[in-house]
Each structure stands twice: as C-alpha cells, then as structure tokens.
C-alpha cells in the first residue's frame, strides 16, 4: 500500500512539476522586459538569480519581516532535507553524519519560522486581507510536517532502524510496510502522508514558485536590447 502510494506521489510530483516547467520554458518572451537596473551580461544575470534564490535580495528591499521569516524557513528546510538523506541513502553519505545536530536545530528553527509566517499572515491587516484558504492550508501542511518530524526527534521516537530497512526495500518490493508498533511509528506514517500531500499539490499550487522564479523575464533577461535583436517565433510572423 505504502509502496503504491509512494510511487503515486512521486509520479504526480515529477510529471506535474516537469510539465509546468516545460510550459514555462516553451512559452515565448516576445519583448525584453528586465526590471532595470539589470545586468548587461549573461553572467551578471546568473549572479542576479543567485542573489535572489540564496539571499532573497528583492524581498529584503521590500519587507524585512517576510524576508527574515521566509529566508529562515527556506534555509532551514534545505538543511533539514539534506539531513534526511540518512533515511533514504544506504550507505549514508559521510557528510550527512555531522549534520545531525545542525539538522535538528534547523528543524526547530524551521517550525518557528513557519509559525512566525503564519502569525504574520494573521496579524498584519494587509497580508491577512490577501490570504486565501489555500495560503493557510499550505502553511498548516508545512507546520504539520515540521511538528510531526520534531515530535519524532524529541518525544515519540519511532523504530527508525526498522523503518529505514523497510524504506530501502520499498522501491523494489510492494509488500514492504514500515512497522507500526508504537505511537512513534504512527507519527512517522502521519509525517510521511503529510509530505505526500504536499508533493501532490506542489505542481498545482503557488509552490511552483520554486521552479517558476527561474523563468521570470524581469529577473532572467539580459539588459541588451539595443545590442541584440530579440524576436519571438510568433512575432516573427508579423514582420
């Protein structure tokens, strides 16, 4: 059952995500519209995108609280995801071992950042006004994932060794099921299901900002319209 579900989730996520990216990549950008001042070279554009992805440059200019909460969440999420390699990869990569403590601290910070972002959404009138049920839904889903994960670290420990053994066979066998002998094991199942739900809605929701950002013409275009002619295929037909 779980194996089937895992394949189902992975398929929806991968096909959904890639087909959105395909749509973005295929749709033409007929005019040069970088928000200036913009880099005048391709290398400069790559650096602009790096600063946006790694430091959230534009958000820093506009909203310090959203920037702090958003950056804390995304950065800790990255660390937590890397730490999770210990559950999926056998043998465990050497660099993941020392990440154990950092990863757990990151998990705590991540949950706090999510709670902060939720609070911000509720407290600030303008942000509350623009929030839809879907916006809260995704935040609650992430909070559920973070808290169920932390609970397993601190309170309800699942039989992680048995789980990993089963997970490693899961991709090759349909019969493998993680053990359900304790409250911790149940918590693990809940954690897994929430992650599955997040991955399923990912391609159909605002979570697509993860891939879409790289296709934003105002950020990824080189400012060289005078030097280089830029014509989209459909516009060529008008010439």
């Amino acid at each position, binding site marked *: 059952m779980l194996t089937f579900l895992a394949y189902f989730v992975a398929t929806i996520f991968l096909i959904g995500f890639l087909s*959105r990216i395909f749509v*973005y990549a295929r*749709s*033409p*950008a*007929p*005019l*040069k*519209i970088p*928000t*200036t*001042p*913009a880099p*005048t070279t391709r290398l*400069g554009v790559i650096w602009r995108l790096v600063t*946006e992805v790694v430091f*959230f440059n*534009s*958000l820093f*200019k*506009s*909203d310090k609280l*959203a920037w702090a909460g*958003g950056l804390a969440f995304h950065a800790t999420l990255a660390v937590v995801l890397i730490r999770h390699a210990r559950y999926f990869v056998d043998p465990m990569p050497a660099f993941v071992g020392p990440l154990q403590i950092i990863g757990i601290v990151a998990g705590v910070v991540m949950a706090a950042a999510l709670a902060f972002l939720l609070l911000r*959404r509720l407290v*600030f009138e*303008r*942000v509350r*006004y*623009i*929030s*839809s*049920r*879907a*916006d809260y*839904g995704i935040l609650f889903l992430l909070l559920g994932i973070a808290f169920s994960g932390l609970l397993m670290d601190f309170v309800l420990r699942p039989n992680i060794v048995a789980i990993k053994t089963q997970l490693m066979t899961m991709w090759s066998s349909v019969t493998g099921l993680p053990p359900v002998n304790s409250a911790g094991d149940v918590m693990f199942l809940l954690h897994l299901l929430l992650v599955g739900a997040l991955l399923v*809605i990912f391609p*159909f*929701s*605002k979570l*697509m*900002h993860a891939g*879409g*950002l790289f*296709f*934003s*013409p*105002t*950020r990824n275009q080189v*400012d060289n*319209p*005078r030097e*280089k*002619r*830029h*014509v*989209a295929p*459909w*516009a060529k037909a*008008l010439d």
Partner: protein
Amino acid sequence: MAHLAPYPGMPKHMEPMGFPGERVENWQQKGVEKLGELLKKYRSLQVYLDICVKCGACTDKCHYYLGTQDANNMPVQRAELMRSVYRRYFTPAGKMFPGLVNAVDFDEETLQKWFTYFHQCSQCRRCSVFCPFGIDTAEITMAAREIMNAIGVGHKYSVEIIGKVHQIGNNLGIPKPALKGTLEFLEEEILDSTGHDVRLPLDQPGADVLLVAPSADFFSEPHIQSLMGYAKVFHQAGISFTISSYASEAANFGMFIGSYEHQKKIAKRVVEQARDLKVKRLVVGECGHAWRVAYSFWNTLNGPLDFLDPRYPAPQHICEFTHDLLQRGALSLDKEANDNYRVTFHDSCNVARATRMGPKAGGQFEIPRDLIRASCNHFVDMDEDTIHEKTFCCGGGGGLLTDELMDLRIRGALPRVTALKRVMESDKVNFMALICAICKAQFSKVLPMYGISMDVVGGVHQLVSNAIQLGAKKGVV
C-alpha cells in the same frame, strides 16, 4: 467615487483599431479564449499568474494604493482579479474546488472590476522591483487591457490617441502645417532671446539625426522649453537634425493597451522615416514610456537598426546625446543661469525600471543627474526610497492621463508629492526636473491641488537650455 473609472471606447474609436465596436455577445467565452491565447504568447503572464505566493511584500508599494487605500490597488490584489479567473478556467484546482483557491467566473461583476482596476494601474513596475520573483503587474495589466479590447470593452482615451497616430502621425493630432508653424515660431523665439539662429528643421533629408520627441513637446508648457533645449544642443554641437512630420511622435500608447501589433505599427513610422530621410542617428526626446519602447522594443519590433551609424547607440536618449557631448567638451554650460533654482530630480518610472542610458547599469539615474549638476549649482535628491528604481510614478502614466480619472491622478501623485514637499521644506527646492512628457503634464495639473505652483516642474533640457552658452565653442561632430 467619481473620477476613478475611465470612459469606455465608442465604436468610432474601437473599430478603426481592429477591435469590436461594442461588447461582443459571447464576451465571456471570447475573453477566456483570449486569456488562453495570451498565456501561450507571453511567458511573463503564464509564470506570473502561477507563482505568486501572496507574501504581501508588494501590498504597500503601489502609489495608487498609497493614495486611495483601496485594497484592489495592492499589486497582489490587482493581479488576483486576473488570477482568480485564470484559476477557474485554466487550473485543475480552480476547476474542481473554486471556493478553496478563490477561483471566480469571468462574469459581469468581474469584468467591471477589471475595467476599473486595470485602469488604475500605470504600469510603472514599482511592484516588480520589490517582488521576490519580479512579478510585473504591468504585464498583467497589459494582458487585461488586451483581453478587454478583444471583447469590445476598451478605454476611450488610449484607443482614441492611437487612432490619431495612425491617421495623423502623433498623439495630439497635430497636422504638418501646424507643426511647421510652431517650429518656425520657436526659431524666432530663440533668435529673439539669444541672438542665435538656432534651427528646428522639419522633414530635412540627409540630416545627421532624426529627433523623435513626444508631441506634447511641440505645444505644451513646460514641455516646449525642453524642445528648445534640444535644438540649442544640436546647434551648439554643430550636428544637423530634423524632426519628421510623419513620425512626429515618440510616445507609443500601443504599449499601454498591451498590443504588440499596435506598438509595432506605431514604432514602424519612426524607423521608416529614419530610412527615408537617410539619417545616421535616432535620438529620442524626454518621454518615459517612449524611451522604454525605443530602447527596449524598437530593435525587436522593427529592427535591426543596422542602417544607422554603428558608433552611436541606436536609438539614443537625448540625455545620453547631450551627456556625450558634454563629456567630449562640446558644450559650455553656465550653472549660474539657473541660480534661481534649487533643483531635485524625479526618476520617471519607465526610464528608471525598464530602460538604461549609457553603457553601465544604472546609467539612467546618473546621466540625467550629471546633466542637472552641470547645469545648475543647487541639486538635491529626494528620499532614497522614492528615487532610482524605487521611484514613484507621477500618477498619470500608463494611459491614465485623462480628465475623467482626475481624482485617481491626484491621489496617485500623493507619494511623490510627499517626498517633494519634504525637500521643498528642508532644502528650499523650487524646481523638480523631469524627463517625461506625461510626468510634466500630470504634475503641472496636479501639483496645484497640493498647493504647489505648476512652474515647479520642467524638463532637464529646460535647465540645459537656460545654461547653454551658444557660440562659446565650435562644437564637435
């Protein structure tokens, strides 16, 4: 509230543009189809409708929101007017659970909101600076206007003006004899005030430069002061130029209504004239969105401009042109001529956030300021959150410079006026230099509502015009 919604286009305005004269019968279906078509033509629209995370960073960045406090003028909410329709017809979640994801039908109420609020956006792109993903509301506004035009729900002001360009050659509908008369009058005016025979030639084949100015420069105050400034610069540099009666308009309202085809058709007049008159260079006058279309789109729309002199940028902004001459020592400017002014500079939105001047990123901020500093002794910038790429729109851009939107224009000017008033008090500023015809017209009209005299605004080349020493040097070519 009155004066917050535009007049609709009548059949006589719409039909010559190739749009339905009035709202088509199956407008809902046609509108949704048009949205589907645009999603396939514009990556910006497709990506920006998908990826907003509603972080709220843009909510207090729009001058119309700051001026009206109307929630639909928060950029994210304005875009939501289209996103909610997009979700309903183009996403699985919106088709299945419209209530959950806020998806709505393209119905009468939605269309009314579109017509109102997509004409309360001046496409100034300030929100795109602050968005973590660079979501540009202008792209969404342009698409919305194109969709509305396609179903026969147009904005009178913009379509009427585009009609005049196609018919007569400029936004104001100035015919050739009137243009000729004006230019001759200005030549006399300059001769009287300076004693120098500065020419403003019309339709002169073989001139070095085709000057394309916004047509307001021919008739409006303070615009005309800058036009005289350009002419003096050409004269002093010894570079021949001409104005064209066929392409007597730099502005391009095709951009405001999101129409690639109309933008291309309007821009084509200029490029054709440059070829026909056999000029070597194309120079664009003080106009914000015109410079965006010229700098960012001309090459794409009607290029390549490879028949022009490759030693100079094509096209070139008049500020770049004058700045280049100044650096090469071709001009003498007497700063004291402007000693009655204490000057600040308003970065026009389209120039600041959608173009460049000179070879370096940010030249669009430095080059006009260099010209001002070279022309006067007292210059001070406004609050740093209101200049450069963070500049506020004047409140009249994007096709909103029309009387029926006067309330909106007054409110939209509030953030800029607030910053201006601060330097007027702290630094005794009494002149705000501009490089945009719309900014000039908008501020002249709106500043008096805030108790500021309309002659506080003028062009950068108005200052150059006052300071330039005619005959002081030989000039260079």
